């Protein structure tokens, strides 16, 4: 957990991890930024958690910003059409 409403993800977000993440995000009243800098992997189960959280945030007139998203993870969002739903900031190319 970073600053106000900022969450940092790390490691691999597969289907075995999503329940913990959902529980964590549900406890944050107004999540604003999710930093993907140390996130190596995400599957559709992880996308589902973020989509559910985005719906909740959107209802209170907000939107989630995803920062430092790698090219591979960015592609997963694009193929899912979720690049139209989240504010995504790709990591700078090395």
């Amino acid at each position, binding site marked *: 957990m970073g600053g106000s409403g900022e969450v940092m993800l790390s490691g691999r977000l597969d289907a075995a991890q999503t329940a913990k993440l959902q529980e964590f995000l549900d406890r944050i009243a107004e999540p604003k930024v999710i930093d993907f800098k140390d996130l190596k992997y995400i599957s*559709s189960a992880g996308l589902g958690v973020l989509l*559910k959280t985005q719906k909740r945030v959107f209802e209170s007139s907000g939107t989630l910003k995803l920062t430092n998203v790698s090219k591979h993870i960015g592609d997963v969002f694009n193929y899912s059409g979720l690049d139209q739903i989240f504010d995504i900031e790709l990591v700078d190319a090395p």
Partner: protein
Amino acid sequence: MERSFKRSLASLDEISEALQTFFADNDARTEHLESVILAVEELFTNMLKYGGGTGDIVIAVALDDGELVVGLTDFDVDEFDVTQAPEVDVDRPLSERQPGGLGIHLVKKLMDRIEYNYVERRGTTKFFKRLNR
């Protein structure tokens, strides 16, 4: 490589490690490794949910002249052909999007092709990905 894995989400770490080891042992280009792991996870978790299987799931991985071939086999199950899964409309607005249903869509997008075979209550889903490009 051919190994059986317990039908549990707890197997996902082991599956990911096995695929990483396969790529390293075969000097395979790793730019598609995470996509391959994702495809296997989506198909594996699908097998956990559908088909009614209770035993281990066998994953076979081979590299044939630069083309990766991965097969997941579930035994004593009902027929469940993932290649016939309905298309997901990824252009719908947030209000109409629901969590779930994206897994097979991603496999189809990220891999070159996907096949399903069902014989004597044994269901095998196989996908192909050319790595040398």
